[in-house]
């Protein structure tokens, strides 16, 4: 090539580069419709005091409907830093506003794990050194035949502009603003750009995608939060909001392995910010140990709704699954109940009656199932009524009444006597019992069912306990469903035997063995009576038990007599027997076992208003602890304060009483007590010096707070007696 041409070419190349640079670095007045030119006029990086900012792309081109990433690279000078989405006590996070010449969907900034940067006694959350803030973008493909305008045509390179603002600080801070842009071609295949390694490396510094769940409670000075960390480490919670916690406060973590689900949860106390103004909304945090991070969504702990999921949809799903599971357990429990010693004899009588019978297809057999269903629904109704009236009850609540225990003992003895043929059989009142349970009519089947439920009540099959426990604290509909499942499981075997010829064919053929078997069955019945007597002893003491056993003997004697005597006298004997049963039950139940139930391990007394009044009148020191199983703060206090040896020693003293109110199932007495102190929830700790003073302790305790309060109360009592 000739020399002149070469020079000319070089000149042209130089001129082109200059104009390109010139075009890039000058602002061009915006003209509507010439958006492309305007956007193209910004550089892809800029420098401000102590920082360089750049706009980078992960891929060399954009593919329609395929996600790529852009990144804002903040490169502050050494010892200068930028900020996280919550800057902490001061500072400002970077913000970006996007514009594009094409239809692009821009996502949110993916914040890498921040550091905690101390500033005097305060803390900021941010990044020192180069930080890439990645943003996912997706080019949305335009409608097929529509667009003709150059701006949306995908053949031109797409220009993307970012309006960026930031704050960079060392000790003093300097804000900055810049508009950056890049231009990317489109293609059908995604290829990596020169910056892709930086994007990959930054991805490793991002928190995990998976959000964890947590619950939180608000106390006077702390937020108590409960969650499950993926593994043990030195975790810190960084809130998204700047007005939540004291960022410089120490976060106190406690492991709690003592809960119902059997998993270890972590409870943490976060000091509240002076600017705290949250009311029960979900809170978001980043949980980090400096090396990895997990986002946490904490839901307000509204009285024990500790479920695994925080979103209401999955909460609904889970509770449906939980109910189905409970119903299944209840059903299994009902099945197993059939072979419990209390129930088996009664059912065996019935089964034997069936074996003797000619017509297994009698529809009256449904009476049994219905009897059982109605009885269990009756139970459920009683449970719901008691719950509604604010009583905290668990399954077996009826067994807490001595008079019912006594009545059941008499019933079981009567059944045993029946099995031994000592009880009178025949027409009239005497035979009524037998007829009711051994006849073929609908009502007899019905009453067999009812009887079966009554005798089943002292026995709890393993699965049943869980299911019923859940039913007791769940809404009415759940309670009814679970009791229904229980009823069905319980009724199933006998109903099958009654209605299905195939099943009843399984029954052994009648014979002499039946008589022996029937007599044998009396023994499990009597075994149950022995158990009932043991319970009765605990409830009413040795005198009460003596009364009951004497009564049972007299009853047995009278029944035997009734059997031996002629009709009228028999009736008299029988009536006497029933009277004896009634009288003894009432008398024996009036005894009170001597020592009140005291848990010797921790010397806790159960709270009742009367008990508190009584203790106060004794002019002793009383520490009242209102707690609940699901209360996070209570658990933390349990571990920090109440396990303290000095405090435990102190509580063992004769003139210091420790009263605990369990609000897990919300009873009215505790609610009234809480209201008295203007609280609506637990925990509540109060120390009384007799009837003189009452001091409400803070919601978050340390051993010294409790010990000092007790000692102060002791002082006051001593001063008073001087």
């Amino acid at each position, binding site marked *: 090539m000739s020399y002149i041409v070469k020079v000319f070419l070089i000149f042209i190349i130089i001129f082109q580069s200059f104009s390109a640079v010139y075009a890039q670095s000058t602002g061009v007045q915006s003209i509507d419709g010439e958006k492309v030119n305007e956007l193209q006029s910004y550089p892809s990086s800029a420098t401000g005091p102590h920082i360089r900012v750049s706009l980078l792309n992960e891929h060399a081109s954009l593919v329609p409907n395929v996600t790529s990433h852009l990144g804002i690279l903040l490169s502050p000078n050494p010892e200068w830093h930028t900020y996280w989405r919550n800057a902490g*006590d*001061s500072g*400002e996070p970077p913000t970006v506003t996007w514009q594009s010449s094409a239809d692009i969907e821009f996502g949110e900034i993916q914040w890498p794990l921040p550091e905690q940067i101390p500033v005097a006694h305060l803390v900021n959350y941010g990044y020192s050194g180069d930080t890439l803030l990645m943003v996912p973008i997706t080019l949305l493909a335009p409608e097929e035949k529509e667009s003709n305008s150059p701006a949306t045509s995908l053949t031109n390179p797409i220009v993307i502009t970012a309006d960026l603002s930031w704050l960079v600080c060392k*000790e003093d801070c300097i*804000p900055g603003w810049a508009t950056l842009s890049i231009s990317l071609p489109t293609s059908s295949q995604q290829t990596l750009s020169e910056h892709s390694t930086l994007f990959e490396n930054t991805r490793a510094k991002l928190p995990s995608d998976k959000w964890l769940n947590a619950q939180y409670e608000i106390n006077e000075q702390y937020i108590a939060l409960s969650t499950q960390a993926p593994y043990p480490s030195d975790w810190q919670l960084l809130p998204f909001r700047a007005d939540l916690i004291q960022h410089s406060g120490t976060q106190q973590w406690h492991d709690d392995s003592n809960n119902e689900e059997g998993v270890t949860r972590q409870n943490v106390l976060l000091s509240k910010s*002076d*600017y*705290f*103004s949250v009311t029960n909304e979900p809170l978001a945090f980043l949980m980090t140990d400096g090396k990895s991070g997990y986002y946490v969504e904490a839901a307000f702990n509204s009285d024990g709704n500790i479920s695994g999921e925080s979103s209401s949809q999955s909460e609904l799903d889970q509770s449906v699954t939980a109910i189905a599971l409970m119903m299944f357990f209840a059903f299994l429990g009902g099945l197993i109940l059939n072979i419990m010693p209390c129930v088996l004899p009664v059912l065996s009588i019935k089964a034997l009656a069936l074996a003797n019978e000619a017509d297994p297809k009698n529809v009256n057999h449904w009476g049994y199932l219905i009897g059982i269903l109605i009885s269990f629904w009756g139970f459920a109704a009683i449970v719901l009524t008691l719950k509604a009236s604010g009583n905290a009850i668990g399954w077996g609540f009826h067994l807490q009444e001595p008079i019912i225990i006594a009545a059941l003992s008499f019933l079981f003895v009567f059944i045993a006597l029946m099995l031994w043929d000592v009880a009178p059989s025949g027409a009239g009142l005497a035979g009524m019992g037998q007829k009711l349970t051994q006849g073929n009519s609908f009502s007899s089947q019905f009453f067999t069912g009812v009887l079966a439920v009554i005798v089943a009540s002292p026995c709890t099959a393993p699965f049943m306990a869980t299911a019923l426990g859940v039913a007791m604290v769940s809404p009415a509909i759940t309670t009814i469903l679970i009791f229904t499942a229980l009823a069905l499981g319980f009724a199933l075997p006998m109903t099958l035997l009654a209605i299905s010829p195939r099943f009843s064919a399984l029954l052994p053929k009648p014979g002499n063995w039946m008589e022996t078997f029937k007599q044998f069955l009396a023994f499990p019945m009597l075994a149950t009576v022995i158990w009932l007597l043991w319970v009765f002893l605990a409830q009413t003491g040795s005198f009460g038990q003596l009364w009951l056993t004497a009564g049972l003997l007299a009853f047995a004697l009278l029944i035997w007599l009734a059997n031996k005597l002629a009709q009228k006298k028999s009736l008299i004997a029988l009536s006497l027997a029933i009277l004896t049963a009634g009288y003894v039950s009432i008398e024996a139940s009036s005894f009170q076992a001597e020592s009140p139930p005291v848990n010797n391990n921790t010397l806790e007394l159960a709270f009742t208003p009367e008990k508190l009044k009584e203790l106060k009148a004794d002019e002793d020191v009383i520490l009242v602890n209102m707690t609940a199983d699901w209360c996070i703060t209570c658990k933390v206090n349990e571990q920090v304060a109440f396990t303290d040896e000095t405090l435990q020693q102190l509580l063992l003293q004769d003139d210091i009483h420790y009263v605990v109110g369990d609000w897990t199932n919300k009873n009215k007495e505790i609610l009234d007590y809480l209201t008295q102190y203007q609280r609506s929830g637990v925990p509540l700790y109060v120390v009384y010096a007799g009837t003189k003073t009452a001091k409400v302790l803070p919601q978050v305790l340390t051993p010294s707070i409790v010990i000092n309060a007790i000692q102060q109360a002791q002082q006051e009592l001593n001063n008073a007696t001087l």
Partner: protein
Amino acid sequence: MRHFKHWFYALVLLLPLAANAAVKVDKAAPQFSLTNSQGENVNLADYAGKYVVLEWTNHLCPYVKKHYESDNMQALQRKYTDKDVVWLSIISSAPGKQGHVSADKANELTQSRNAAPSHVLFDESGDVGKLYGAKTTPHMYIIDPEGTLRYAGAIDSIKSANPADIPKATNYVTAGMTSLMTGSAIDKKVTPPYGCSVKYKS
């Protein structure tokens, strides 16, 4: 060992509380006494019976500059000192740190910026700043004539260093003072403050 652990927790739990003496709105505002730019002693107690606005400031902080270069802060000062409100600008910057100025310089700045605080007070040790939990510059507090703290927090609702955001934001000092002076309750009694960190001694 367990004893020690529990005492340690107690101590450590209380420590940050000491450092950030929790300033509580609707409680008595803590008393203090500082020297102003004329060399006089100024006590908060002197102003019982008047509204007092506390403004933590640092004239080199970009967020303070946002409000001063736009005349926003001065306008507030003029407006309220005209209504017999006491406006105290407090500098808690330690010597050698950004914002720390001599008395003469402070007076010169007041002049050149056309500012109208009742006093410019020096809190070099940072004790009053920590007493009030002042975290940023600017950081605003409003105390009512009964000496109760009624507002603590940001000057306005848009956290940025851009003066163009001032007209778009809700000014919490104006909102607070208006509510108080008309006898109604303040809507937002606490808001998270924004700005540069107060340049405490340590």
